[in-house]
């Protein structure tokens, strides 16, 4: 039944929508940045997908790999990293990483102009965009999307010193590492004034900033904290967790990579599809390698391969096509398999859950592969070695070496200082009884009720 009231509401709606429509139409005609609702929706969802990668995905992936007396410690480290970095990000992290910065420092670190997200209004379009120069997302959406990357990066390092780090030292470490390593590197590579960005380093979704950065920090901390006691036989306590976590990581990675297009467009679709095919190829390759060298295809192998494939395609997702993605996925499993199975055991460092072997090595391969395979049929203006631009590979090598060096040195210093101040490693007895009971006074599961 049509009443007067309904008609009135209808008229109001029409007027409002017409006004909104005409406003964005005018902006479109003037080529001014405006907020596009489709793009905004996609990046909002992507932000949630990236959050999902830290907890529960990474927490389960790592949690399943440790002994059952240490599983809660892994979950707690992931949860607290998520919580602490989330607060730090909106207060001081984002402005230091992504604001333009001042004077000669601007290439290296931001300033405090966006502290507590001040001066960012809810209707401001994001200053950062990839392919959609005018159809932007709100600046606040960019803030939270990037925030989720800042959360997962320190969490990846958990795999290196798992089963033997003191919880309080862990917290001190990730907070210091976030400020001294993550924020500067994110600024160099992703912010508009960053010196690696200006040099032309390509990192679509975080191969350098996230994976190489966390990967090398993992190697350094694993060596510094020393091997676990009773290292020899450590079968993962629950591979079902690990499988679930890996599958969730794969799912969340669509937000990580396709969300990095900062728009719901063809570039996002390309990132989505190459991400999927690289992960798939890498999972198949690792399973085959297991089958050849150890007579059985393993779940842990296939899951690790999938994650390695996701890592490797991350920097390349917005620059390469399907053929290249297949090669990237194939090669990453071969390299990482060699690192995890041969090199790690030969050198004897205890990178407990292979954070370096998968994220570090996979990330380096991904960064270089971007310089090799980038093609201007995906994003015009960006091509690599095989498409007539060898200089790109050189730039990628420089960006990789710079990140490796900087992250290694600062990680070493931070870890050393924390060790001197409060000891990073738990006592022998605490390690023996397990970190769940010794650090958190809880157990993950019971034997007898």
């Amino acid at each position, binding site marked *: 039944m049509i009443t007067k009231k309904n008609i009135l509401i209808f008229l109001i709606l029409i007027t409002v929508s017409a006004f909104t429509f005409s406003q964005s139409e005018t902006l479109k005609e003037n080529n001014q940045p405006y907020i596009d609702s489709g793009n905004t929706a996609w990046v909002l969802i992507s932000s949630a997908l990236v959050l999902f990668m830290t907890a529960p995905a990474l927490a389960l992936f790592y949690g399943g790999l440790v002994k059952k*007396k240490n599983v809660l410690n892994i979950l707690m480290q992931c949860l607290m990293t998520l919580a602490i970095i989330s607060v730090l990000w909106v207060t001081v992290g984002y402005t230091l990483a992504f604001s333009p910065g001042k004077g000669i420092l601007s290439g290296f670190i931001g300033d405090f102009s966006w502290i507590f997200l001040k001066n960012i209004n809810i209707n401001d379009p994001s200053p950062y965009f990839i392919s959609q120069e005018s159809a932007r997302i709100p600046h606040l959406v960019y803030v939270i999307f990037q925030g989720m990357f800042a959360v997962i990066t320190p969490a990846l390092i958990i795999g290196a010193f798992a089963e033997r780090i003191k919880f309080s030292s862990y917290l001190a470490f990730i907070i210091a590492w976030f400020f001294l390593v993550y924020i500067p590197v994110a600024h160099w590579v992703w912010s508009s004034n960053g010196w690696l960005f200006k040099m032309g380093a390509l990192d679509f979704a975080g191969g350098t900033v996230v994976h190489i950065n966390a990967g090398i920090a993992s190697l350094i901390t694993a060596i510094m904290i020393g091997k676990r*006691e*009773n290292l*020899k*036989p450590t079968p993962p306590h629950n591979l079902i967790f690990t499988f679930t976590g890996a599958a969730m990581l794969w799912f969340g990675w669509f937000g990580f990579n396709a969300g990095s297009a900062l728009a719901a467009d063809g570039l996002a679709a390309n990132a989505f599809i190459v991400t999927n095919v690289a992960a798939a190829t890498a999972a198949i390759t690792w399973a085959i390698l297991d089958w050849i060298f150890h007579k059985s295809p393993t779940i842990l192998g296939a899951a690790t391969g999938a994650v390695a494939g996701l890592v490797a395609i991350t920097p390349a997702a917005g620059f390469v096509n399907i053929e290249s993605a297949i090669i990237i996925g194939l090669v990453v499993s071969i390299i990482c398999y060699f690192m995890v199975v041969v090199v790690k055991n030969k050198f004897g460092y205890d990178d407990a859950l292979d954070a370096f072997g998968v994220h570090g090595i996979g990330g380096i391969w991904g960064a270089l592969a971007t310089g090799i395979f980038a093609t201007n049929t995906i994003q015009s203006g960006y091509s690599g070695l095989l498409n007539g631009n060898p200089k790109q590979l050189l730039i990628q090598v420089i960006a990789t070496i710079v990140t490796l060096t900087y992250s290694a040195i600062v990680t070493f210093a931070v870890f050393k200082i924390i060790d001197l101040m409060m000891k990073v490693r738990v006592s022998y*007895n605490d390690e*023996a*009884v397990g970190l769940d*009971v010794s650090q958190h*006074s*809880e*157990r993950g599961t019971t*034997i*007898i009720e």
Partner: protein
Amino acid sequence: MKYIIAVIQPHKLEKVKNELYKAEVNLMTVSEVLGHGRQKGTNEIYRGTKETGNLLRKIKLEIAVNDNFVKPTVDAICKAAKTGEVGDGKIFILDLEECFRIRTGETGVGAIG
């Protein structure tokens, strides 16, 4: 024939196994158990509720041996499981009346090794 039951710290299992292999004791049954002797349990807290005196996780080894293997077995376990702290565990030795090997029907001393 003796039946040896040893309760040890879980993280010592691997060392104990290796020492037993060196003493040529290769057959054993292992189970995960809860228990405490003089050592107190750990404190656990669940949403503010304290659980005290909880039993600790231990490993129980059960090994059937011929008489001449009793000492090597006990020595191997002690050597590997000892830390000198409360909670290292205990070893119990019982007389074993009979032993059957299901596959062959052997009995007694021959069925153990």
